[in-house]
């Protein structure tokens, strides 16, 4: 394979890996926005907390159990981090958002910004702000074909993201709770009249969204090998861009939006210039929003007259 093609494929893989992480966070955004139309700025922070929980789990594992096969410790990480983040998500919803259920959307948005500030600095104070290194749980095994390399951790990221997306699509379509979430997204008053406990469904949405974000956090920590309390900000912003780009409210949309944004950024950085990388991402977002506001897969809800 000639060098140019190898380069392109490698850039594609780089973009896809990044895109998958964005997609996982975007799934959380889309679900929360779909159900209660709230731009949850704190979601990026929940992702960051997930990464830190994974780091804590690794320390605990190292202290308690001796060396374990990698997939056992990986599973333990996931469970620990998802549980922690789910609990955090539920607490945020109960403390900060539930009292604002029927106040104007802007006040809920300000609260989410407050929560994001709070979490960021809380983690900094607990874990001290130094960049923390994350020991490598998933062994660094690499498959390479010519100059193209594809590591095990990238494979794990792909599998986990696609798997979770399929699970979520199934969950929303066939389970009672999933249907209730979709009903709430369509018409909250009607859903309420049909006996759906709005608060419970919203709480579950937050729990699910936070758990997904924590999975992204775990994979992010393992892939890059270091965490910083500031990670949530930029990743959260990009993930939200992906969610809107794919069509906010639509689960496959979040996946597609995340992947495309990752690839677009990867190629942009690789071929044009990495310092303008973020500008490409935002220009893409603005272009989509203006030409097709409902995003690629979102449904356009015309205003009833």
């Amino acid at each position, binding site marked *: 394979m000639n060098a140019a093609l190898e380069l392109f494929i490698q850039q594609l893989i780089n973009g896809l890996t990044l895109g998958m992480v964005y997609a996982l966070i975007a799934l959380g955004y889309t679900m929360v*926005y779909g159900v209660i*139309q709230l*731009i949850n700025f704190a979601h990026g922070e929940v992702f960051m907390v997930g990464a830190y929980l994974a780091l804590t789990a690794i320390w605990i594992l190292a202290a308690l159990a001796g060396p374990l096969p990698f997939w056992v410790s990986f599973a333990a990480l996931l469970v620990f981090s998802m549980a922690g983040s789910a609990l955090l998500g539920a607490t945020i919803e109960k*403390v*900060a958002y539930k*009292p*604002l259920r*029927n*106040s*104007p*959307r*802007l*006040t*809920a*948005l*300000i*609260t989410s*910004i*407050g*929560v*994001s*500030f*709070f*979490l*960021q*600095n*809380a983690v*900094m*104070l607990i874990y001290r702000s130094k960049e923390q290194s994350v020991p490598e749980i998933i062994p660094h095994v690499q498959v390479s074909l010519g100059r193209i390399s594809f590591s095990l951790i990238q494979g794990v990221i792909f599998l986990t993201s696609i798997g979770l997306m399929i699970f979520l699509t199934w969950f929303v379509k066939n389970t009672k709770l999933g249907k209730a979430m979709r009903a709430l997204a369509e018409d909250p008053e009607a859903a309420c009249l049909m006996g759906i406990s709005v608060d419970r469904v919203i709480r579950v949405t937050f729990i699910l969204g936070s758990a997904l974000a924590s999975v992204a956090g775990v994979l992010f920590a393992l892939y890059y090998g270091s965490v910083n309390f500031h990670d949530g900000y930029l990743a959260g*912003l990009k993930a*939200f*861009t992906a969610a*809107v780009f794919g069509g*906010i409210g639509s689960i496959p949309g979040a996946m597609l939006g995340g992947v495309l944004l990752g690839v677009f950024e990867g190629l942009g950085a690789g071929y044009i210039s990495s*310092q*303008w990388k*973020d*500008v490409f991402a*935002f*220009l893409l*977002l*603005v272009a989509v*929003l*203006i030409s097709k*506001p409902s995003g690629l897969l979102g449904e356009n809800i015309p*205003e009833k*007259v």
Partner: protein
Amino acid sequence: MERISLKKSNLFKVATVFLPLALIPLFDHNPYHLDLFTTVGIYALLAMGLNVVVGFAGLLNLGYAAFFAIGAYTYALLSLHWHCPFWLGLPIAGLVSMFFGFLIGMPSIRVRGDYLAITTLGFGEIVRIAFNNLDAWTGGPNGLLGIARPKLWVPSFEGGLHFETWSFSVNPAPYGYLVLGLVAGTACLLLRLSDSKFGRALVAIREDELAASCMGIPTLKVKLYAFGVSSFIAGIAGCVFAAKQTIITPDSFDFVLSVLILAMVVLGGLGNLWGAVLGAAVLGTLPELLREFADYRMLVFGLIMILMMIFRPQGILGGQLIQRELDVRHKESADGAS
């Protein structure tokens, strides 16, 4: 109270609020307090400007720091390359920022609700990164240095009337007066705007854009005007900021600043001009008041924003619109639930 009488009192209200503030620089020469006073003044300008778009028209602009930056960089470049005096640079910075306000406003206002927030957020980031990367003009991350301070022509009478130039220096007192004047002037103009048919049109758009359009309001044009006025004010604030700091770097105009100004508008009371000013005062001084617990500052700042929204959503002063909206909602939920 009768509608007509209220209008005459705009000038009166502005005077009663801002005149006593003019006394502060006279009694308190502590440069730190005056610098804080000026910084809060600049925040007040920004909060009032953003209030036009967010408070009146309900258009959520999350990229407001970009216009603040455009104003600052415009004056910096004017002053560095063409030695343009501050008093000429001020309106030009406002106009350039207004131009970009229209440019960015044009596509954004066609977009609905939350998407407008994201479009403006995107533009805000693009402008900041552009300033950081275009090293040739903006000095990139090093920013622009040595921006001229405002000068005044002070008439002096020894040996016949002639004017010497007296330049602002590091002492923040003159900036305090400059900012106070701008804030008072802007407050007066915005109060007049909100009493005019444009103020009402903006509020109608916020209430029900479709009905407003059927009632003869050219909604896109009016929203664009709101964007224009709002970014003009940010341009002015940016120009003053550049003249005070004499050095500007892109990292002073990031997303956190846009969010901070938005929080001021909402905390003070949406759609309420005085709320915006008070929000600026509260959130401007809070980080300084909390300076003692240095590490915990931003933590407490976030906590206050959360608690404020739960216990006082209509903001400290209670924006009329939000206040009415909340009363209506409580009444409805009371009827519904009973």
